[in-house]
């Protein structure tokens, strides 16, 4: 009896150690690609990230130097336009799912949003190509922004809904019991309490679409020069990286590495901002 118990104990210790070891190795495997990507980008791209890269247009083939200023600004413009479409729609849709609507309709809408989240991003490019580019006979910043905005909607909708549902019901009741109307309660109490979570969702959605290439291929199309009108094709960082990376020129390859480094750093910065925001005061629930 005594012996058996001791034996059991050892075997348990071994199992526990094994599980712990496997979990540790998995964790390292998950994190290592990030480290490798960042390391590789630094090695190959850091040399080409300089003042010119941020301020100059792409140089013609053969000419030395040049930068990606138009692509950096283009990405920001596309994100701004995508945000105008995606943020209000996504946030208000999330509020509807969390606060209004019947359980039946909501579960159906939630399912649709999850399906939309799973659609490959290039599909959105094709949809917008058919709806906008063909109709108005031209690639444009509008079309690119619309494609990115459509990707953002279900992402923001779901995160907004989730963080609003995390707000304890006691706060809604407290506000309503003061004679505050339903919509004022939602805007001033519920959304304010959930604001950090909502902002986090928006930033993560922006970071996600900021790196999208496929939906821009046949909507924004890319541009080697400054974009002077949103109804014209516009450059974007991921597109420029794609074009440069598949080109046969060493100089362009170096620029592509630099572009990738800048893009990844940008996304990384957004994520760090999110972490700082969500840490914040303990006063907020989400």
């Amino acid at each position, binding site marked *: 009896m005594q012996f058996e118990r001791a034996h059991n104990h050892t075997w348990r210790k071994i199992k526990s150690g094994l599980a712990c070891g496997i979990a540790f190795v998995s964790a390292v495997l998950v994190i290592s690609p990030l480290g490798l990507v960042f390391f590789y980008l630094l090695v190959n791209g850091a040399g080409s990230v300089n003042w010119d890269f941020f301020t100059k247009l792409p140089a013609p083939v053969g000419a030395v130097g040049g930068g990606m200023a138009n692509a950096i600004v283009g990405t920001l413009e596309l994100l701004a336009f995508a945000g105008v479409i995606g943020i209000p729609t996504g946030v208000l849709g999330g509020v509807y799912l969390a606060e209004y609507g019947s359980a039946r309709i909501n579960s159906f809408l939630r399912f649709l949003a999850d399906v939309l989240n799973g659609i490959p991003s290039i599909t959105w490019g094709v949809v917008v190509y058919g709806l906008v580019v063909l109709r108005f006979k031209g690639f444009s910043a509008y079309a690119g922004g619309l494609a990115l905005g459509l990707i953002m909607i279900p992402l923001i909708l779901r995160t907004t809904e989730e963080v609003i549902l995390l707000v*304890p019901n*006691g*706060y*809604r*009741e*407290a*506000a*309503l*019991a*003061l*004679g*505050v*109307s339903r919509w*004022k*309660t939602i805007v*001033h*109490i519920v959304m*304010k*309490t959930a*604001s950090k979570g909502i902002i986090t969702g928006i930033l993560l959605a922006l970071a996600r679409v900021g790196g999208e290439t496929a939906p821009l291929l046949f909507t924004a199309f890319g541009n080697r020069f400054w974009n002077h009108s949103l109804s014209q094709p516009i450059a974007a960082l991921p597109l420029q990286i794609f074009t440069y990376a598949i080109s046969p020129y060493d100089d362009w390859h170096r620029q592509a590495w630099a572009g990738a480094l800048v893009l990844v750093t940008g996304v990384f910065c957004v994520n760090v901002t999110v972490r700082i925001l969500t840490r914040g*005061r*303990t*006063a*907020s*629930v989400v």
Partner: protein
Amino acid sequence: METTERSVIERAEQRSAPPPEVEAPMACTFQVKNLSIWYGEKRAIDNVTLDVASNAVTAIIGPSGCGKSTLLRALNRMHELVPKTRMEGTVLLHGENLYSSTVDPATVRRRVGMIFQKSNPFPTMTIGENVVIGLRLNGVRNQRFLDERLEKSLRMAALWDEVKDDLHKPGTSLSGGQQQRLCIARALAVEPEVILMDEPCSALDPIATAKIEELINELKAQYTIVTVTHNMQQAGRISDYTAFLYIGRLIEFGPTTKIFTNPSEKQTEDYITGRFG
């Protein structure tokens, strides 16, 4: 119908006036007549009729699930927040039907404030903001008026001396008992006529409970108070009238001294002496 609506709104607007002079004894604030409430198929309140006396504390007691909270929430239409509720009967507040089709629930709740079991100061707001948020969201902009009301409400809730130097700190930084008094101040700031309390002390320690009870005793000079409590001793200490509810029915209602010393119903006696519940 229209007169009812107008008078409800007028009353809501005139609430900055001092409360009415001392009324005749047993003046009624609420008259509940044949009230029944269903949640879906389940009947939570079964044909309850009672009058709530003005400037007195009325306690609702009874075992868990007997409909105490539902009856309380029917007095400011908070029970309607639960989907699929249905009601029959009438609830009159100073003679006006709260459930008339022309009455906005928000107007009712401005006149009938509520304190909850779990203190719930808004976590994104400071102590000061918490107190005046009801006024702010109801459209009051005048900062001097808000400041005056802030101090007055905190004084009435016996919290002013403890927090007057910390008004900019988050409401959630206070202790549990202080948070509950902050919630009382928040409810008082919109100057209701009635305060409903849903087990206001059940999450508090004995010292904090004693403070709230003392406060209830002071507030009844100006307000009508209806409180739900699980604690028999507390009902005995703080209330003037007691209603005993069992499975949705009002078993007995009368002056607290009578209910506790000489109840007419066997069920009331059994519950109060702890034989069930």
